[in-house]
C-alpha cells in the first residue's frame, strides 16, 4: 500500500512536471517536481526507499525527456540515497532543515547531472550555476510547502470527518 502511494506520488509529480510545469512556472528549470517528491520520499522513508524512488522517477523522467536515459536516474538515485541517509542521522522535520535539504539535494542533483553530461561530452552547460541556485531555492520552497501540505492533509481530513460525525447525531 505504501509502495503504491509512493508510486502514485511520483506519477503525479511527473504528470505535473510534464504537463503543468511550463504553464505554471515558465519552464522546467525553475522547479523539479519529481526531484522534490524523491527527496521527500527519501526524507520520510529512508535511503532504500529513497534510492529506489530516485531510480524509478529519474528513469521515467529521462524516458520522457530527450536526455540520455539513466543520467537523471543515476543523479536522483544518489540524491535519494544521500537524503535517506541524512534523514536517518539527523532530525529533518522542521521547515528550515527541510528547506536546506531540498536546496542541497537540488545542488547535488545538478552537480551529478551536469557533471555526467560534461564528463561524457554530451552537452555543454555554459554558466549553469545561477539556474541551479534558482532551481534549488524554488525546490526548497516548493518542497517545504509540499511537505507541510502532505503532512497537514491527514489531520485536516480527520478533523473534517470528526466535524461531520458531530453534525449527524
Amino acid at each position, binding site marked *: 500500500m505504501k509502495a503504491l502511494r509512493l508510486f502514485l506520488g511520483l506519477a503525479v509529480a511527473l504528470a505535473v512536471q510534464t504537463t503543468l510545469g511550463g504553464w505554471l512556472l515558465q519552464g522546467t528549470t525553475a522547479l523539479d517536481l519529481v526531484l522534490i517528491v524523491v527527496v521527500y520520499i527519501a526524507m520520510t522513508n529512508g535511503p532504500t526507499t529513497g534510492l529506489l524512488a530516485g*531510480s524509478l522517477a529519474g*528513469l521515467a523522467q529521462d524516458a520522457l525527456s530527450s536526455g540520455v536515459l*539513466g543520467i537523471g*536516474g543515476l543523479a536522483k538515485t544518489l540524491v535519494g540515497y544521500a537524503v535517506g541517509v541524512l534523514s536517518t542521522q539527523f532530525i529533518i522535520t522542521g521547515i528550515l532543515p527541510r528547506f536546506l535539504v531540498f536546496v542541497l539535494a537540488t545542488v547535488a542533483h545538478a552537480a551529478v547531472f551536469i557533471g555526467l553530461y560534461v564528463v561524457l561530452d554530451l552537452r555543454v552547460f555554459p554558466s549553469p550555476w545561477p539556474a541551479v541556485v534558482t532551481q534549488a531555492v524554488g525546490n526548497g520552497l516548493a518542497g517545504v510547502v509540499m511537505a507541510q501540505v502532505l503532512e497537514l492533509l491527514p489531520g485536516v481530513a480527520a478533523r473534517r470527518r470528526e466535524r461531520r460525525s458531530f453534525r449527524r447525531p
Partner: protein
Amino acid sequence: MPPAIRQRPGVILAVAIVLQVGIISAQVNTARGMPLIESLTFGAFSEVQRLTSNGVDGLLNLWNNYAALQHVQAENETLRRTMQEMQVQLQQERALAQRTESLRRLLELRDRAGLQTAAAEVIAAGASPDFRTLTIDKGASDGLDRDMAVISPAGVVGRVILSSPLASKVQLIIDRNAAVGALIERTRAQGLVLGLGNATLQMEYVPGTADVKPGDLVVTSGIDGIYPKGFVIGTVDLVDRGPGTFHAITVVPSVDFSRLEEVLVVLTPPAGREVPPDAEAKP
C-alpha cells in the same frame, strides 16, 4: 520490501548505479565513436593489462638481467674459446699464405731453371748437431735418388745422400763433409766451397791473383757433376789474402737453413755427369 533488502541500502545503491551506468553506456558513444561501456571496459581492462604487462615486464627484465649475467659468463667463455680457435686458424692461414708464397717462388725458380724438379717439404732436421742434414718428404718413389741437388729460391741447399721410398735425407752445403764447385760470379774465378759445420762456408782453391772482394756473389760452377751451374751459394764475406797461393774466402750462404720449409729436388742430372749407381755421395 523485505527487511533483509531494506537493511542493505548500500547493496541496492550499488546495483542501481551499475544498472543505470549500463543503461547510459548502452546509449552513449565516446568522442571517438566507441560505445561508452566498451570504452570504459576497454579502458579499465587496458589499465589492468598495462599494469600486468609492466609487472610481468619488470619481472622478465629482472630475470633476463639475472639470466643474462650467467649467459654473459658462458658467452665470454665461448667467445674466448672462439678467439683462441680463430687465432690458431689465423696462424694456420698465415702459414698457408707463407707456404703458398714459398711454393710460388719455387715454381718461379723451376721455370727459370728449366730443370725437371720435384718439390718437397722439409719434415725434419738433422738428428745430430755434428751433421747438417734434414729430411724431406719425397723419396725414391717420387724419382729422387742419391746426389740429386736440392735447391731453394734463395740458393743451393744441398744434395740427397739417402733416399727411401717415401723420404730422403739431404746433406746441407754447410755440413762439414759437403763441398760445392763454385765461382765468383763477377770475375768467374773458380774454387771449391766447403762446409764448416757452422753458419758459414769456406771457399778454397781460388787463386791469389783472382779479383775477389766482399760482397761478390758466389754461384755454383757445375763442375762437381751434382749442382747445376749458376745457382747462388752465397756472398763473399771475408777475403784473406794469406801467404799461400790461394785466397781464404769466407762465404755467407744465401739460404737461411733454419727457416727452410720447401725445397726443389733437381731430377735432371747436370750435363756430363757420370755417377756410378754405387758411388759414395761425396762431391
